[in-house]
């Protein structure tokens, strides 16, 4: 449905997007995650045909966004960041205008359907300029849905909404994503784990990681972190723990707390438990610490990926979602490179 091959966008010497490649299939919700300025909006604008890429190519529903731009645009609904609308028009007037531009057949029905999907039917005759942020967002979504496109590109669809509206919009996106291809950008991390089948983490215009939210979490957990608390801390514990097979680093905290990092895919907890019990340190707590999406995000985006990852790094290649985690070690932990 959506295919991007080596997309790059330069503004003079500034690089907005560098060598971004990925695919998205029908029924898939793909999330773009990244800090501001990471290239999310630029990548989306390239996909919608609004910005031509400096390099690379992209296609929507089999149509190249540059060479068959109008065919590609016919197959896509787009909600730009900040939802630009005409304040002087009414909701119905605006949607009618967009439906005419898109030459939607059975305009009246399409309008009704789109308005019902986002629950704005009762405000159809209100001026857009008088609407709250939440309603504006819905009008933007209705506009993107008018022509029932197979591909939806939503730039920060939940930004500025109150919690109840966020839940509504997420439910809508999930519903839409079941039969369409949806790309959405966000910097709200739980949104990604809730909504997306796959995530692309962008950093400095490059893909830092691309995978399902679940395996992204487990892959980063491959570097196991274990929290250990002992009741009778004596000097030299840290050194002894460090000798346990598989332990890489040990950090000693207050009150006998130790944070231990072990090598990938090796659970050091049984060995640690044995050691603590044998030495009689008084085991209080021993548990694996899982990384939240926040931590993964920070892990991936705060390191200078641009400096370590060459443009040909496997990170920039599309990864099929079903690849076993062991094989794509390099893609996620680029900081190791």
């Amino acid at each position: 449905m959506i295919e991007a091959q080596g997309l790059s966008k330069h503004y003079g010497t500034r690089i907005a997007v560098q060598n971004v490649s990925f695919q998205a299939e029908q029924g898939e919700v793909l999330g773009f995650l990244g800090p501001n300025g990471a290239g999310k909006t630029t990548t989306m604008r390239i996909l919608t045909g609004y910005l031509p890429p400096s390099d690379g190519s992209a296609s929507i529903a089999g149509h190249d966004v540059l060479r068959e731009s109008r065919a590609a645009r016919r197959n896509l609904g787009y909600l730009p960041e900040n939802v630009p609308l005409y304040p002087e028009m009414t909701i119905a007037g605006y949607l009618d205008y967009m439906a005419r531009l898109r030459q939607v057949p059975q305009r009246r029905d399409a309008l009704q359907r789109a308005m019902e999907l986002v629950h704005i039917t009762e405000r159809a005759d209100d001026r857009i300029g008088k609407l709250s942020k939440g309603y504006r967002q819905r009008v933007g979504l209705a506009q993107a849905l008018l022509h029932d496109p197979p591909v939806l590109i939503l730039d920060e669809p939940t930004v500025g909404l109150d919690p109840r509206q966020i839940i509504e919009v997420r439910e809508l996106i999930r519903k839409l994503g079941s039969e369409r291809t949806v790309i959405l950008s966000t910097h709200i991390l739980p949104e990604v784990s809730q909504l997306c089948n796959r995530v692309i983490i962008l950093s400095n215009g490059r893909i830092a990681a691309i995978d399902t939210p679940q395996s992204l979490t487990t892959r980063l957990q491959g570097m196991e972190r274990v929290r250990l608390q002992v009741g009778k801390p004596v000097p030299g514990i840290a050194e002894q723990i460090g000798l346990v097979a598989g332990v890489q680093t040990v950090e000693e905290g207050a009150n006998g707390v130790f944070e231990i990092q072990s090598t990938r895919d090796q659970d050091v907890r049984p060995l640690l438990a044995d050691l603590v019990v044998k030495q009689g340190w008084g085991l209080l707590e021993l548990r694996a610490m899982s990384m939240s999406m926040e931590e993964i995000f920070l892990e991936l985006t705060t390191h200078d990926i641009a400096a370590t990852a060459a443009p040909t790094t496997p990170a920039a290649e599309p990864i099929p979602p079903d690849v076993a985690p062991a094989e794509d070690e390099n893609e996620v932990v680029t900081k190791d490179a």
Partner: protein
Amino acid sequence: MHAALTIARRELDAYFVSPIAYLVTAAFLVISGFFFSIFLISAQQQPNNDITQVMQGLFNNINVILLFIAPLLTMRLLADEQRSGTIEVLLTSPVRDWEVVLGKFLAALALFLVMLLLTLLYPLFIWRMGGNPDWGPIFGGYLGLTLLAAATLSIGTLASALTENQIVAAVIAFAILLVLWLIGAAGTVWTGAAEVFRALSILERSDNFARGVINLEDIVYYLSLIIGTLFITTRILETRRYS
């Protein structure tokens, strides 16, 4: 073309939501009415009572008014879409860039033609009051004004594509029009190239129409100016995506 008309229709509606269309129309009618009265009264005071002079004088003044109101009518067209970001929705819908430009231009032209239509009251007034206006030059004058209006409005549309600031768009449009207006005067200094300057001048030609002289050359001048300007505007819209 379908899309261009859809865009033009929305744009016309937008004109009448803001006070600008009403203000410009009112100002236009007051000023043209004022000139009409002056020419009518002065014609009455002349011994030969030459009524044809009235409309010709009026046309020559509407020409000048156009230079001032065209930038006001066109400044919003593309600048505002770029400022608010609605251009992004417009250009990602399956609409061709030239259809956007043409639609915007047609809306401004339609609004001006409505204003011009209202001035038909003046020759009808002369006729109703028992005067015998010469319809040939009047028809020519209106044709000339329509072409001149289309040319000035296309230049205004171009200026509006250059910036997201409406005021800047209006100033650019006015500056270009002023140059095209005054270029005829340059011929009085560089007499050698007088013909060239006069050929380029946007105003000199509409005088011909007001005298009832319709030259193919004049029509071609205006049409090529309009098409060329709209073409460049389309290219500007395209290249602004690259910036």
